[in-house]
């Protein structure tokens, strides 16, 4: 069982951004993503549509350079005005070729 090391990027953001962030991660090189509904509290606590769905969590398994690009894009574009956090860590996957 050969395992290959990749990065998993986790993004938590207000639900309104779902479509955009999903497009972004794919455009930046993710071969896919997994998205779950979430609730949360942060330092800002600002959200525009309280009862229209709260937060979403997007997770994608990507090559390290793609992870870098995704985090950079988030920092540049979304961090200032939107409720968004993001982080990444190493994971070991089976069949690494699926993710590139």
């Amino acid at each position, binding site marked *: 069982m050969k395992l290959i090391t990749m990065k998993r990027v986790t993004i938590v953001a207000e639900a309104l951004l779902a479509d955009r962030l999903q497009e972004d991660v794919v455009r930046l090189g993710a071969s896919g993503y997994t998205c779950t509904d979430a609730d949360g509290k942060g330092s800002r606590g*600002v959200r*525009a549509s*309280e009862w229209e769905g709260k937060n979403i969590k997007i997770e994608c398994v990507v090559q390290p350079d793609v992870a870098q690009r995704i985090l950079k894009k988030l920092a540049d*574009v*979304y961090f200032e005005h*939107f409720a968004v956090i993001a982080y990444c860590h190493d994971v070991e996957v089976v069949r690494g070729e699926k993710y590139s």
Partner: protein
Amino acid sequence: MSALELIQLNLLSPVILCFLLGIAATLVRSDMRFPEQLYHGLSIYLLLAIGLKGGVAMVSNPSPGMIKVLLAAVLISACIPLWLYPLLRKLGKFSSADSAAVAAHYGSVSVVTFLAGIAFLQALDVPFEGFLPAVVAVMEVPGIIVALLLVQRKNPAASSWLGSIKTVLTGKSVFLLLGGLLIGVLSGPQGMEKVAGFFVVPFQGVLCLFLLEMGMVASRRFDDLRKTGPFLLVFAILVPVLHAVLAIWLGAHLGLSRGGAFILGILASSASYIAAPATVRLALPQASPALYLTSSLAITFPFNLTVGIPLYFAISAWFFS
């Protein structure tokens, strides 16, 4: 009936009492949670049902002058931000983005306020035009677009122009209202008969349940009232009254019935808290949701539901006597 009697009648209707119960739930910190998917389900039901009923009314009692009224409604929506934006900039000392954001909300409409207005007319047995759901649909979008045009967007996170317009146009309320109208027109009274047991009979009760949730949602914003200051409070009460009076007057001149003119007033007066916030948040991320949502959802919406509706109806008597 006097305005006071009308207010009392309105406040003691189950629909408004449920709204107040929702507010109370937040105030006493009840652990009641309204299931989110139920909220969405009820909103689909209410939009489709009101559209359907309007469509059937259009074929069974055709009211003349629909096109004229629809055009006027678009115009009202589009003009509202044009005067609110400078007002908020100058008098309110709001930033450009904040002013445009608030203006967008008052240029659009609140469907729930509309439904409460219809329920109020039905309680008084006052007739109204069948095409009014179409008026709601056309008034949802123009004000938002005009308001967004008023401010330059250079933020990299801001959604594109096309994106904003797409967001508001494909919203479910416009779609379901117009879809319901079309189905009502095509299937007519015989079609309606078969589905009245679902779309007509329980309608007011469903609206009660929905307003219970709306009361909880609105009151969760009450805390923000302290942060937003007295200007917004005055703004969010006086501006709606002014818009209502002007729109009722206009409606009377366009040949609408008293019920119809009253509803046009309600619509002009109401502020959006679904389509507008979603669009504005993406198009003007630098604008503060605390400002625009507090004014539309925590001030104007409860004011209109409780005091505005009977007040505007009393006022409408001036133009129809």
